């Protein structure tokens, strides 16, 4: 019987499927974003437009940072990856808080539009992405496109 390798020394080489998934979600977010921004604009006016755009940037940036952290640290060690994900969660929440706190009293911010866009974009993009994720041994990231 062979011993299980220690997660502190095992590292993962090769392609990073989470970056591929995250990039695809950002692409879809940029496609759907203008519709959501326009909707917020109709309901909350110009403040809704700017708040919704700001929230969209925050959510897409959050996805990109999360995937980047996993991809970079997985090449070093699985133990580091685990630590980076857990501390990354705290750091990303902190960045999100700071980003909203700094603009909370600005005239161009509409809090309901900001909050609604954060939740709808985050959950909506994730649910939409599930349709395109293969997560199989042959295709660990996205499903192969029909043209290939």
């Amino acid at each position, binding site marked *: 019987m062979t011993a299980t390798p220690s997660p502190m020394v095992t590292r993962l080489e090769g392609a990073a499927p989470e970056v591929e*998934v995250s990039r695809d979600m950002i692409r879809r977010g940029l496609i759907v974003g203008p519709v959501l921004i326009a909707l917020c604009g109709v309901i909350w006016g110009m403040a809704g437009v700017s708040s919704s755009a700001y929230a969209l940037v925050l959510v897409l940036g959050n996805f990109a940072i999360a995937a980047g952290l996993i991809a970079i640290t997985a090449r070093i060690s699985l133990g580091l990856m685990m630590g980076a994900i857990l501390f990354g969660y705290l750091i990303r929440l902190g960045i999100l808080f700071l980003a909203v706190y700094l603009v909370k009293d600005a005239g161009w911010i509409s809090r309901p539009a900001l909050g609604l866009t954060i*939740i709808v974009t985050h959950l909506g993009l994730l649910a939409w*992405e599930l349709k395109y994720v293969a997560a199989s041994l042959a295709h660990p990231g996205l499903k192969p496109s029909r043209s290939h």
Partner: protein
Amino acid sequence: MEAISHVVAAGLTGDEQKKANAAIGAGFAYGIAAIGPGIGIGYIVGKSVEAMARQPEAAGMVRTTMFLGIAFTEALALIGFVVFILIGL
């Protein structure tokens, strides 16, 4: 109790008291909403690392599932964050 007596002694008006209560409630909403996802993400990542160490050939598949799991779990914290924005920031 000492904190409450300080508030009473400070002689807050009705509006100020309402704002103070909202701030306290918002802080609790965000703080408590962040605990659950923290535990959930820890559990997801721990099990994923275990799976990747045992079966490195399935690492790509596990990483994708882990990433999506983390993102879905994080949505709970974001809902708490939005409540925090709306009621007390």
